[in-house]
C-alpha cells in the first residue's frame, strides 16, 4: 500500500511541476519573428525527472526516519569519536595541521585567498554560534559588528595611521561595546521579535555607513587599507596573502580555544540552559538578561575582529559588503554546520564558503545547486553536519576524584 501511495504522491508532484515550469520550459517566444514555439518534449522530461526525484527523495526520508526511531539520539558523530580516541587523535590533528600549514605554499594565491575568506567565516560562525547556537538568540543583524570591525580599522588607519596590530585588540573591545549597546535595548524581546529588531539594527548600521559621507566616505567606501605589517616590514602581494593566511589561522585557533573554554564553563552552561528553558533557567538562579547580554556581546567581539582581517585582506571596503545577505550566510554556516557545535560550525564555514567557489564550474546553476544542497542537509541532518556533543566526566567512585575527558 505504501508503495502505491508513494507513486500516487510522486505523480501528483510531477504533474504540479509540469504546470509550474510550463512557462519557462515549454513556451519559447521569439520576439523578432513574433512566433511562439511549444517544446513539448521538455514537458515530458520535467515530468519524468520530477517523478523519479520525488521517489528517491521519499525513499531517503523514510530511511532516515526509520533510523532515527531505532537509536535514541545518542549517536556520536564520527569526528568526535576520532577525537575521543587517543590513538587517532594525535595523528588526525597532526595531519590536519600539516595540511593547513602546507596549504598556501602548495596551492596558488587564488586558493589561499579563498581559504582566508573561509577562515574568516569560521571566526564569524564561531562567534555567532555563541549567540544563536548556545544562547538561542536569533540574531539577524550580526553583520553590523563585522562592519564595526572593518570600518574601525579602515578609519583609524586613515585618520590616525594606526596599524593592524593596534586596531585588532581595540576592535575586540569596540565589538563588545557595540554588542552591549545594541543588545541592551533589544534583548528584552524574544524569538521572532528579536530576529526582526536585530535585522533592523543591522540595516541601520549599513545605511548610516552609506549615507554619512563625511564619516565613512559613503557608498564610495575606503580604499588603500594597508595589509598587516610584520614588525614594520611589508611583504609583496603574494607573501602578504600567505602572511594574512597564517594570521587568520592563529586567530581561528585562538577563537576555538576561548570558545571551547567558555562553552564548558559556568557561563556556557548558563547559555545552553537559557536556550533550553528560560523559566527553569531563571528558577535555577541565573540572571536571564545578564546572560543574554554576555552572549550577544561576546559574539560581537569575534565579528569585529573578523571585520578587521577582512578589511586588511581586501584593502577596500564599502557598505555593500555588509548587507543582510552576509548575516544570512553566517547564520547558514551555524545552522547547517550544527547549532552549538564548534566542529560543526568549522565544517559548515568551510563547506558553505569553499563550495560556491569551486562550483563556479557549473556557472549559472551554481546558486541553484548550492541552495538544493542546503535544503538536503536540513532535511536529512536537521542537527547540522556535525551535531554538538557534551563534555563527558568520568568518576572514580572510590576516591571521588574526577578525570576530565574533553573533546572538541
Amino acid at each position, binding site marked *: 500500500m505504501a508503495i502505491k501511495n508513494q507513486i500516487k504522491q510522486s505523480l501528483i508532484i510531477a504533474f504540479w511541476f509540469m504546470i509550474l515550469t510550463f512557462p519557462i520550459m515549454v513556451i519559447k517566444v521569439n520576439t523578432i519573428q513574433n512566433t511562439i514555439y511549444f517544446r513539448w518534449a521538455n514537458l515530458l522530461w520535467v515530468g519524468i525527472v520530477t517523478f523519479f526525484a520525488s521517489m528517491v527523495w521519499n525513499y531517503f526520508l523514510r530511511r532516515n526516519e526509520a533510523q532515527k526511531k531505532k537509536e535514541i539520539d545518542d549517536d556520536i558523530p564520527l569526528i568526535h569519536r576520532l577525537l575521543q580516541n587517543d590513538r587517532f587523535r594525535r595523528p588526525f590533528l597532526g595531519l590536519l595541521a600539516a595540511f593547513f600549514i602546507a596549504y598556501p605554499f602548495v596551492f596558488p594565491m587564488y586558493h589561499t585567498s579563498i581559504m582566508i575568506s573561509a577562515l574568516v567565516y569560521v571566526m564569524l560562525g564561531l562567534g555567532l554560534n555563541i549567540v544563536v547556537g548556545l544562547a538561542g538568540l536569533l540574531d539577524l543583524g550580526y553583520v553590523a559588528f563585522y562592519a564595526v570591525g572593518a570600518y574601525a580599522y579602515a578609519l583609524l588607519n586613515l585618520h590616525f595611521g594606526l596599524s593592524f596590530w593596534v586596531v585588532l585588540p581595540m576592535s575586540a573591545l569596540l565589538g563588545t561595546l557595540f554588542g552591549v549597546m545594541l543588545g541592551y535595548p533589544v534583548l528584552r524581546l524574544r524569538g521572532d521579535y528579536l530576529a526582526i529588531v536585530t535585522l533592523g539594527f543591522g540595516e541601520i548600521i549599513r545605511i548610516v555607513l552609506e549615507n554619512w559621507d563625511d564619516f565613512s566616505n559613503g557608498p564610495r567606501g575606503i580604499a588603500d587599507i594597508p595589509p598587516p605589517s610584520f614588525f614594520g616590514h611589508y611583504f609583496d602581494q603574494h607573501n602578504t596573502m600567505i602572511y594574512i593566511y597564517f594570521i587568520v589561522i592563529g586567530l581561528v585557533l585562538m577563537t576555538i580555544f576561548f570558545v571551547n573554554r567558555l562553552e564548558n564553563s559556568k557561563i556556557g552552561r548558563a547559555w545552553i540552559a537559557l536556550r533550553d528553558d528560560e523559566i527553569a533557567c531563571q528558577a535555577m538562579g541565573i540572571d*536571564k538578561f545578564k546572560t543574554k547580554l554576555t552572549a550577544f556581546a561576546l559574539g560581537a567581539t569575534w565579528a569585529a575582529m573578523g571585520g578587521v582581517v577582512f578589511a586588511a585582506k581586501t584593502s577596500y571596503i564599502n557598505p555593500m559588503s555588509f548587507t543582510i545577505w552576509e548575516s544570512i550566510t553566517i547564520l547558514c554556516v551555524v545552522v547547517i554546520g550544527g547549532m552549538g557545535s564548534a566542529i560543526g560550525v568549522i565544517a559548515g564555514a568551510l563547506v558553505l564558503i569553499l563550495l560556491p567557489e569551486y562550483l563556479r564550474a557549473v556557472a549559472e546553476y551554481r546558486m541553484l545547486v548550492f541552495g538544493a544542497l542546503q535544503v538536503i542537509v536540513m532535511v536529512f541532518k536537521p542537527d547540522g553536519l556535525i551535531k554538538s556533543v557534551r563534555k563527558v*566526566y568520568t568518576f572514580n567512585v572510590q576516591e571521588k576524584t574526577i578525570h576530565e575527558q574533553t573533546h572538541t
Partner: protein
Amino acid sequence: MNKPILNVKNLTMNFGGLKALDDVSIAIEKGQIAALIGPNGAGKTTFFNCITGIYEPTNGIVEITPPGKNTQSLRGLKPNYVTERGIARTFQNIRLFHGMTVLENVMIGRHCRLSSGIIKAMLQPPSQKNEEQKAVTDSYEILEKIGLEQYVNDMAVNLPYGAQRRLEIARALATDPFLLLLDEPAAGMNPQETKELDDLILWLRDNENLTILLIEHDMKLVMSLSDWIHVVDYGKKIAEGTPADIKANSDVIKAYLGEDSDDA
C-alpha cells in the same frame, strides 16, 4: 515563638477577570513537610509561581525568615534572586535542560553559588579550575544522594520518567535551598517509584535540614508524609490542619466530591 520560615499573607493573583488566588494566607514552619492540596485548577501552581517570582502577585505579602537570618520580603524579586535567597522548586510539567547531560543539569543549579566570571572562564586561573572541579564533585554527590549517579553522563531527555522527576529535585537541591517547593513530584510515577519518592522526601527533611512544601494529588502520599496540610479551592483557602483534621473536614470533602478529582 519562632517566626515561620515562609509567611504568605493575603496573597491575591488576578489573571484578567479570573481570581486564581484570592486572599490566601499560608505559613510554613521550619522543618515541616507541608502539603498544598486542592482540586485541578485550584491555584496551587499559581501559588508557587507567585512566591518564586515568576508571577508578580496582584496583592499580598510574601516573607521569608531563613534559618539564622532576618525576615525579608520576596515581593517583586526576579526568580533568580528568589533562588539565591534559598528557595528552590521543581515543575509540574518537567522542565529539564534537554541539551545537557544529567550532571550538567545539576551543575546549572550550582550556578548561583559560583563566582568565576567570563574573563576567568577564558583564562582559567587555578581559582576557577578549583571552583569548577568542586562544582563537578558537589553535583556528583547530589546525584549520589538522589540515586541518579548511574545516569551521570546521559542526556537528560533520555532518562526514564521517574528519574526525570528525581533529577528535577537534584537540580533544585544544587542551589543550596532551605525551603524546597515540589510541584506534583509523584505525578506519572508507578507505586514503586512513589514509595521511593516518599523515602527521599523524608530523608531530605531529616538529613539536609530542609523544609518542604509539596503540591500533590496522590492522597496516600500526602497523608502519610505531611505534618500539616493546606487546602485551596477556586483560589480560596478552605482549610488547614493535620492529615487527620483534613480527612474529617466537611468543606474539604465537599470540594473534592464536587469535583472530578484524580484520586480519592
